[in-house]
């Protein structure tokens, strides 16, 4: 089963890993930062070694984006796409045995200042 982990964030300045650049994360005591980091290293490292991580990508600054609206023809304008508090900052594609396993990996991405979204991907076939 394939899932996508979406990282929503608004680091200032826009940089990766996003958590290093959010006020909420920076306010944490060093020990908590270390614990979060060690937990992510462990969970993500295991998932990667298992071949459960298919692909990952960090995204550029939302203000560098170009948006196309369709009004009889594609009309380009400068981004960001949404005016929201947070933007899509990056994503990872997982291939795992269950939703529970996907949630376990996704949860390890969670830290103050970032919102993690886990979404299933659709399959072209169906289980018999």
């Amino acid at each position, binding site marked *: 089963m394939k899932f996508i982990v979406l990282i929503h964030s608004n680091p200032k300045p826009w940089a990766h890993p996003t958590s290093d650049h959010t006020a909420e994360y920076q306010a944490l005591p060093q020990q908590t930062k270390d614990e979060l980091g060690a937990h992510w290293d462990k969970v993500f490292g295991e998932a990667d070694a298992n071949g459960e991580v298919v692909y990952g990508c960090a995204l550029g600054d939302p203000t560098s984006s170009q948006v196309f609206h369709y009004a009889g023809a594609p009309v380009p304008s400068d981004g960001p796409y949404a005016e929201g508090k947070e933007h899509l900052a990056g994503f990872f594609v997982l291939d795992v045995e269950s939703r529970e396993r996907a949630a376990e990996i996704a949860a390890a991405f969670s830290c103050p200042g970032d919102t993690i979204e886990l979404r299933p991907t659709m399959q072209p076939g169906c289980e*018999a």
Partner: protein
Amino acid sequence: MQIEDVWRRQAPYVLAALLRGGRPLADCEDAAQEALIAALRQWTSGGIPRNPRGWLIRVAGRRLVDMTRTDTARARRELRDAYTSEQDRPTGWADRTTDRDDSLQLLVLCCHPSLSAPAAVALTLRAVAGLTTEQVAAGLLIPTTTAAQRISRAKKSLAGARFGPVAPAELPQRLHAVRHVLHLTFTAGSSAGAGPDLIDTGLTRNAIRLTDQLHRALPRDAETAGLLALMLLVDARTPARTEQAALVPLADQDRSRWHRDQIDRAVILLEDALPRGPVGPFQLQAAIAAVHATAATFADTDWAEILQLYRMLQDVAPSPAVDLGAAIALSEVDGARAGLAALEPLLRQRPRDHRIIAARAHLLEAIGDAEAAECYAQAAALTDSIPEQHYLHTKAAALRR
């Protein structure tokens, strides 16, 4: 693509011959793949040799010797001789016995319990089924780089694992792992859907082929026979399962489109395996599929028999899917209201399971409950299968009209 067919058939025996020389799996597998590339190049123009296996072992053996940093000329000569004698092994009854051992030992090695399931699936497809990395990736719907990574990591983890006969005491546990990997390969193939490729890279086909190989190596192993029967039965219904990208439920399938020859073979396998006992989960799942497959029409289905088989499965291998199957069978035996009552506790445990919600929608529709449409829509939102989602949306829309 005849060369590819020859390769698929010979791949495990070529690799086994190389492994018998005592070299690590990673080197042997690389050498075997290089022999395939050489074969594709040379056989396309020059034709397929009379003894393709001998040709492949000779070429791969040479590559392996070249790869091996053996210091002395004598050691290199001995290695080369080993593969040459392998290539000239006589064919006949004795050889077929070795073939069976080879495919068994290779499966046991590639489905090693130290590997994660996805790693074992990828390695087995390449090393035993003879797929290229690109084909493994296409089958699993993952990028080629990910497939390559899984395969090379799997090979690295098996660097110390031994190729050879498995101790009889260890065999049941190792076979359990092999069947698990083959079954996962099969279900992964079902989710990926059938491709339009002329070359059959389909995982379901390859899973059936490998399970058939395992069954031929161990014809008395009842659970392996059960797994093969299950795959044949599920696969037999594939042509009738979808219509223009939409799912066709069992009740509405055109049964004349089912592969009757596969159903017949599965029934024979089960009739032979079941009386030998103890009856394992794959045999029971296959027996359920066989009851469906041998009913002339949906109305003729022997639901009492299916319910009894699900009850046995609940004892042997309980799972949410088995409980759901039992609830559906119960609804056919005792009516939709009994089925709905049986679904209640399952839904409490797994409130987001689209299969349970879809079953509930069907039963609500059967008793004329207006909530059915909402229930179908809820299941549609939770499934990750495009054809299934299409079907569930259609049901919801029809009820709302």
